[in-house]
């Protein structure tokens, strides 16, 4: 199965278009895409939410038919030879396509049968795959009981059961923790290196794009770029800097730099603010930050994400930042508003959370981080009063929310993982409902709804059914609903998973402002770069807290000769690796 450089490309698309019609609207999900994927390469399919990545994946696997254009897979025309193609490719859909009520072994057996793997070869093949994925000890476990990362690896093992010539992975790393992501990439590298397999992987994690040989960048159904990551970032050379200012908090600094003239992107990274400029060279610091002393700016190498943001910013300017409201009650900022002491939660004999404790101060952005199955969601649900703890105490603003009077719950805002909205209802109906649910009435209710529509730029979609909104809009609406009643404390569960980097930046800009006004924010996330926005965070594994501290503290702990400037992700992985017991 060595790569044949003279043969046809693994995948070729010529003018491929696919249109969907929904409720009288025509959506050009894939619009005139021409692309090639060379044999033996790792090609990334990158784009914001709704760019058409999944539709493209389904087109090239024969699950959808193109309205026009031509698709050749491994030299075969998909219109004619779809059966032959499907025998030679592997495909892992977004939810991994596993049968959750079958065990790991039974899932493997099923796919081995379906892919015509001879019985005699199976033992060796299973051995390889189980070793590679680390699933060996879990063959008898039901797939539904595996953690997200393990499911992802099992899904991969099932598609690799008969080594395919071409492997399609649709967003395999969504909802999967950094350790599992890293392990997945190690497997992919091994596969392409050793057996010459071709891989097309779609992802919304832009750091992953840098690991691909070629990147196909999609936006609104169109292919807007196809090149190596280095070629994408080349125009960005000399436009990325990190800036620190003595005596000014990173959040304040970020606020100053964000949207400043000449700056197209500003993100918090550790103690620094990382900026990307609109042309080579940083504007002179005195003009950029006129009244500040002790400002230091160093150039840093560009990342793929910079290129991505730069490209998309041309089409979608940043939303106007909301005016910063002065802190309502500066004196009250110090009290501890969330206190967790010795909290344990059992599910049957399984200890999901094991005697954890931490506290959150008023006005803090506090992060709850951990691998899949580490217990952070359980902790989160206990804090919100959705689950009773088996032992220990938790108080939020002095109450245990599980037994708190309704009034106490009126002080918190909650945004669930999947942006839980009523999808059949319109945006306006959702806002009306949540405003009433939070006991707003009369003029105040009208005023808050008007505020939400304007603040979150929802006026144009006020009458659209939520079902038809893109993920970015849904996220904004969910946040608007959670903020309807101006809560003191905001709970955010995986608030940005699946949304594109621009929406993520807008989101964090708002959260920062909220924190500045004294709102306490508790957030769980998989995105390590988002951990940078936190004032303090805890990292959990196997129901215990491994570390508590500021992001800088954590990175400092793992600063070494090999890793002079560790990212949050490096620190996270190092922490898990040095944890007492092995993690799943």
């Amino acid at each position, binding site marked *: 199965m060595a790569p044949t450089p003279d043969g046809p490309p693994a995948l070729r698309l010529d003018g491929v278009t696919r249109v969907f019609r929904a409720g009288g609207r025509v959506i050009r999900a894939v619009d005139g895409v021409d692309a090639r994927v060379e044999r033996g390469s790792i090609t990334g399919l990158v784009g914001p939410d709704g760019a058409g990545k999944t539709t493209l994946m389904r087109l090239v696997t024969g699950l959808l038919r193109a309205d026009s254009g031509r698709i050749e897979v491994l030299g075969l025309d998909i219109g004619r030879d779809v059966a032959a193609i*499907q025998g030679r490719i592997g495909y892992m859909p977004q939810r991994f396509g596993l*049968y959750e009520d079958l065990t790991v072994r039974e899932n493997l057996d099923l796919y081995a049968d379906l892919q015509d793997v001879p019985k005699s070869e199976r033992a060796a093949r299973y051995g390889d795959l189980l070793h590679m994925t680390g699933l060996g000890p879990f063959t008898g476990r039901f797939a539904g009981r595996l953690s997200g990362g393990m499911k992802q690896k099992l899904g991969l093992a099932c598609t690799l059961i008969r080594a395919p010539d071409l492997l399609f992975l649709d967003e395999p790393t969504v909802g999967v923790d950094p350790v599992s992501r890293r392990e997945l990439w190690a497997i992919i590298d091994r596969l392409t290196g050793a057996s010459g397999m071709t891989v097309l992987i779609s992802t919304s994690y832009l750091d992953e794009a840098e690991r691909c040989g070629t990147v196909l960048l999609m936006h609104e159904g169109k292919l807007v770029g196809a090149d190596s990551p280095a070629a994408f970032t080349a125009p960005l050379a000399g436009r990325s800097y990190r800036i620190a200012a003595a005596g000014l908090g990173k959040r304040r600094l970020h606020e100053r730099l964000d949207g400043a003239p000449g700056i197209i992107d500003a993100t918090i990274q550790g103690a620094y603010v990382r900026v990307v400029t609109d042309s080579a060279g940083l504007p002179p610091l005195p003009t950029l930050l006129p009244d500040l002393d002790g400002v230091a700016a160093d150039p840093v190498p560009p990342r793929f994400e910079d290129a991505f943001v730069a490209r998309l910013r041309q089409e979608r300017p940043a939303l106007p930042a909301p005016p910063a409201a002065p802190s309502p009650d500066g004196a009250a900022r110090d009290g501890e508003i969330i206190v967790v002491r010795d909290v344990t939660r059992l599910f049957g004999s399984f200890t999901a959370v094991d005697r954890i404790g931490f506290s959150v101060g008023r006005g803090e952005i506090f992060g709850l981080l951990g691998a899949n199955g580490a217990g952070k969601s359980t902790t989160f649900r206990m804090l919100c009063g959705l689950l009773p703890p088996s032992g220990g105490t938790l108080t939020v603003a002095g109450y245990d929310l599980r037994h708190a009077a309704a009034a106490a719950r009126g002080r918190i805002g909650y945004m669930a993982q999947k942006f839980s909205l009523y999808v059949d209802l319109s945006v306006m109906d959702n806002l009306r409902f949540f405003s009433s649910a939070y006991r707003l009435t009369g003029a105040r209710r009208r005023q808050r709804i008007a505020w939400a529509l304007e603040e979150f730029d929802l006026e144009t979609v006020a009458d659209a059914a939520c079902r038809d909104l893109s993920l970015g809009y849904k996220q904004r609406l969910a946040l608007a609903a959670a903020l309807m009643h101006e809560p003191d404390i905001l709970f955010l569960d995986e608030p940005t998973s699946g949304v594109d980097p621009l929406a993520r930046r807008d989101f964090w800009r708002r959260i920062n402002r909220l924190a500045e006004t004294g709102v306490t924010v508790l957030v769980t996330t998989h995105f390590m770069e988002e951990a940078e926005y936190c004032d303090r965070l805890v990292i959990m594994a196997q129901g215990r807290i491994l570390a508590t501290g500021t992001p800088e503290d954590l990175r400092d702990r793992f600063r070494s000769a090999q890793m002079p400037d560790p990212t949050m992700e490096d620190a996270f992985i190092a922490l898990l690796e040095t944890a007492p017991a092995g993690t799943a």
Partner: protein
Amino acid sequence: MNASLIRLGGLLRKEFLQILRDPSALAIAFLLPAVLLFIFGYGVTLDAHDVPLALVIDHADATTASVAGALAHSPYFRISRPPDIEAAETALTDHRIDGIIWLRSDFARRALSGRTASIGVILNGTDANSARLVEGYLQQTWATWLAAWGARRGQPSPVPVLVQSRVRFNPAVSSRDNLVPGLIAVIMTLTGALLTALVMAREWERGTLEALMVTRVTIREILIAKLVPYFVLGMGGMAASVVMAVTLFHVPFRGTIPVLVVTSALFLLASLGMGLVISSLARNQFVAGQIAIITTFLPAFILSGFIFDIDSMPAAIRVVTHVVAARYFVSILQTEFLAGDIRAVILPNAVALAVMAAIFLGVARLSARKRLD
């Protein structure tokens, strides 16, 4: 071994494992039939016996006593004797009795003088069916009394025609004997259509079908793998129901096993095919379940001839019953249990089932593609 057979084997193993591990499927397949059969076998009967009636006699004498005697002898009635007609009327309004038999004060005088007295009967007609049955029983009792009346006087019977009735297949006219076989058909409709509709929709919803499709498996293999396990489950439920009917409820079985097996198989195929069509139309469990409930249980209950006589329905409704597969199977089962292998009944109904099975499976096959659109 043939690659296609191995693929099929893999899929079948998966389906069986899923059935074994899903309590709700097993509940529908075994618990529901068992509960229903018990309720029907022990509880439900359309026959009337011990019907509470009030006998009001305004002036008691030997003649009225003979009427009272005839009524008391009937196994169908439980006679009470309220003091007067007002008390009886109150009891009727309060549902304590189902009817009143009223012999007025001139009853004996008129009967003996040849001026034809009247036996007043007032029934609660709300439940028209029960009222009809009571009417019939009263007429029988009356005819018996008339014959005895004539014999006692050495006169010919005032009712000169002697009705000899013979009820074929079910001489005791026991409703259990025909309800239990009919019920089996209703239950099998549920097992077949509801389960297949839900399991296929579940695969759509969970995205597992998407992964399956991009393998070497063919759509025919997927469909066969969905059919076989539920076919086996259905035949198992069928066998259990038949055994229960015969051993527990002593319903006679006069047909032959092979005919029963073949016709059951045809019926199950039609039901399963319908389930597959529903799920390929709906693709989500909520809608598939609602369609399945609306199109299976109540139609099988009401339009199959299981309880309500199809011949007595208006013509337009009779046409509708022809698309209810249970209709044919109810007819086959009632015949197999109570009558035997009667070709003239079994054959046309079996052909109708075969046609329905072919249509549903054909539509399922045509509408299922190895694609998402």
